[in-house]
C-alpha cells in the first residue's frame, strides 16, 4: 500500500459561466520516502494537485487516500486534524503570519492543540536550531531575508512531525545560492524519511529528488521514476547529463 494514492481525481473550478479543468482523471501512487518533483508549465494544475493531496481542496471527483485514510470522506474537522498530523505545507510566498514572531510562526499549528507551552517551545526551538534560526526566534518575519523566512516556514511545516511535506515552488522567490541551501534542507528531510512533493520550475532541482512527475493541462504527461533516480545519482556524483530533455517551457 502506497502512502499516498490518488485515484481518478478531477478538479473543476467554476467561476461564473466559465469552468476550468485544473486536473483531469489523475491517478498516481506515491510511496513513503519518495521525493517527488512536480513540474509543468504555469496553469497546468501543479498547485491544485498539491492542495488536493494536502487536504486543502476537495476534488470534484475521485479519491485521495493517505495512510489508508480516504481523506475527503473525513468530516471537515477531521480533515483539519489530518492536515496538522500528516502534512506540512511550504509555499513560494512563505506565508508566515506577519505579526507573529519566528518562534510563534513555527508554533502556529500547535496553537489549537492542548500541548503544554513548555513542550511546544522545546520542539520549536529544536527545529529552529536545525534550520539555523534559533537566535532569530524573537524576530518578526519582516525582519528576515527570504531564505530565512522560508526556513521558518519549513520549521513550521515540521512542527507536528508530519509524514508528508508539500512544497509549492519553495525557491521561487529566492536567489540561486539561497535556493540551493533550501534544497539541501529538503534533501536532508527526505533522507530522514519525509515524503516530499515539491513543485519547481527549475529543472536542476529534480536531481535532488527520486522521481519527477510532469503536468500538462491537468494531466500527467511524464512520470519517470527510475530514469530520474539514475540521473539524480549521476548529478550527485558529478556526471554529465543532458539538461535539455527535462526542460518543458
Amino acid at each position, binding site marked *: 500500500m502506497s502512502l499516498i494514492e490518488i485515484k481518478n481525481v478531477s478538479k473543476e473550478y467554476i467561476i461564473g459561466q466559465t469552468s476550468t479543468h485544473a486536473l483531469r482523471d489523475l491517478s498516481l501512487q506515491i510511496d513513503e520516502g519518495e521525493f517527488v518533483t512536480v513540474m509543468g508549465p504555469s496553469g497546468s494544475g501543479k498547485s491544485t494537485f498539491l*492542495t488536493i493531496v*494536502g487536504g*486543502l*481542496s476537495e476534488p470534484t471527483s475521485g479519491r485521495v487516500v493517505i495512510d489508508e485514510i480516504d481523506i475527503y470522506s473525513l468530516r*471537515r*474537522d477531521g480533515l*483539519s*486534524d489530518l*492536515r*496538522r*498530523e500528516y502534512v506540512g*505545507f511550504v*509555499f513560494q*510566498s512563505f*506565508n*508566515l*503570519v*506577519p*505579526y*507573529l514572531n519566528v518562534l*510563534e510562526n513555527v*508554533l*502556529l*499549528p*500547535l*496553537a*489549537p492543540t492542548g500541548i503544554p*507551552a513548555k513542550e*511546544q517551545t522545546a520542539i520549536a526551538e529544536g527545529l529552529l536550531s536545525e534550520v539555523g534560526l534559533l537566535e532569530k526566534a524573537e524576530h518578526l518575519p519582516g525582519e528576515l531575508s527570504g531564505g530565512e523566512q522560508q526556513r521558518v516556514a519549513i520549521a*513550521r511545516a515540521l512542527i*507536528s512531525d508530519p509524514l508528508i511535506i508539500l512544497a509549492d515552488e519553495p525557491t521561487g522567490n529566492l536567489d540561486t545560492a539561497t535556493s540551493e541551501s533550501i534544497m539541501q534542507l529538503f534533501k536532508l528531510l527526505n533522507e530522514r524519511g519525509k515524503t516530499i512533493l515539491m513543485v519547481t520550475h527549475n529543472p536542476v532541482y529534480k536531481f535532488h529528488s527520486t522521481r519527477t512527475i510532469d503536468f500538462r493541462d491537468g494531466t500527467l504527461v511524464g512520470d519517470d521514476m527510475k530514469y530520474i533516480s539514475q540521473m539524480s545519482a549521476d548529478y550527485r556524483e558529478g556526471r554529465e547529463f543532458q539538461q535539455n530533455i527535462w526542460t518543458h517551457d
Partner: protein
Amino acid sequence: MKLYHIGLKNLKRRRVRTTLTILGLALAVAIEVGLTGITKSLEDDFSRKLDEYGANILILPKSDDLSLDYGGLSVAGVTFGSEKLSMSDVAKIKAIKNSENIATVVPQLFHAADVNGRNVIVSGIDFNSEFRLKRWWRFSGSRPKEPDEILAGSSAAQALNLKPGDDLEIAKHHLRVAGVLTETGSQDDKLIFVSLPIVQKIFDKGEALSMIEVSALCYNCPIDSIVAQIGEKLPNAQVTAVRQTIETKMDVMHRIRHFSIILSVAVVLFAALMIFVNMMSSITEREKEIGIFRAVGFKRKHVLAVLLFESLIVSLSAGVVGYLLGLSGAHLARPLMGLHDLHGFGIDTLLISLTLAIFVGISAAIYPAYKAAKLEPTAALRAL
C-alpha cells in the same frame, strides 16, 4: 502558544485600528452610560426637590360645606369646621405601604384670633417641617426657635404693624415676633404662624388639626395609589393630590428620558454598524492569514475563536473606557445641567457598560467572523 496569543498579537500589530475601534465603541457606551446617568441624576434630583415645590397631597377633614381653594384663603372654613383630623393621623400617614415615598408630613391647625383688635388667622405648624416644605420662604428677622416665637406673613404683619422683635398677645398668651415673611403671593402672606402645640394649647384644641400637608417623592411612585392608601387609613378625611405642577414636571422628565434612550439606541446601532464594516474589511485583509491558519490544521471553530476573542478584548476595553468616558462626561456636564451630584455610576453601571459593549461588539463581529471561518483555505491562500 494558544489561540488567544494570536488574537492578542494581531490586536497589538493593528494598534491604531484597534484603538480606533475601541474608542468608537467606547464612545457609544459613554454616551449611553452618560445619558442614562445624567437622566437618572436628574430624576433623583427632581424627586428630591419635589418637596421644595410644596405639598403635593392635601388632607382635609371631610365636610360638606367645605370648598377648599388652597390658592385663595377659603381654608378659613376649614378652621371652624369640625376638626376631624388629629395628631394620631400623622402617624397613620407615615405607616402607609408607600411610606418610603413620603418626604414630609406637615400637620396644621388654623384658628381665627383677635390680635390688636383685628381678625387674623393663626396657623399652627411645626416650623422645621414647614421650612423644609416651603424652601422659597424668605423672611426678615430670624427663624422662630423658642415655643413662644412666631412668624408673621407679610400682609398680616403690615395690617398688625408687626416687626421682628415685637410682642403680641393672642388669646391672652404672650408671644414674640421672631421674623416677618417677605411676600410670597400665596395665602401665607395673610397668616400668623405659631408653633402647633402652642396653638393647640391656647385655643384648647387638644390634638386637633385642620389640615395635613404631605410631600411625597413621587417622580416614579403612583401618586394616586398613595392618595388611596392615605384615604384608606383616614376614612374621615378628604385626600387630594395637588397634581398639575408635578405632572408637567414629570412629563418633562419622561421626555428627557425618552430622548436619551432614543439617542443611546441610535449611537449604539451606529457603533455596531461601524464595527461590522470594520470587521468585514479587516477580514478581506486577513484572508491570506486565515488561509494559513486553515492550511496548518486550524478548524473553522479555531479561526472563529481567534476572531471572536479579538472582538471580546476590544469590547471589554471599550466597556471600561466607555464607562470612564461616560462618567467624566457626566461630571463635565453636571454643572451645565444644574445637578448637585451624580447618580447611576455604580458598579452595576460598569457591568451594564461591559455587557452592552460585549453584546454590541460580539453581535457585530459574529457574522464577519463566521464568514472568515468559512473561507476556503485555498481561495484564501490564492488571495495574495
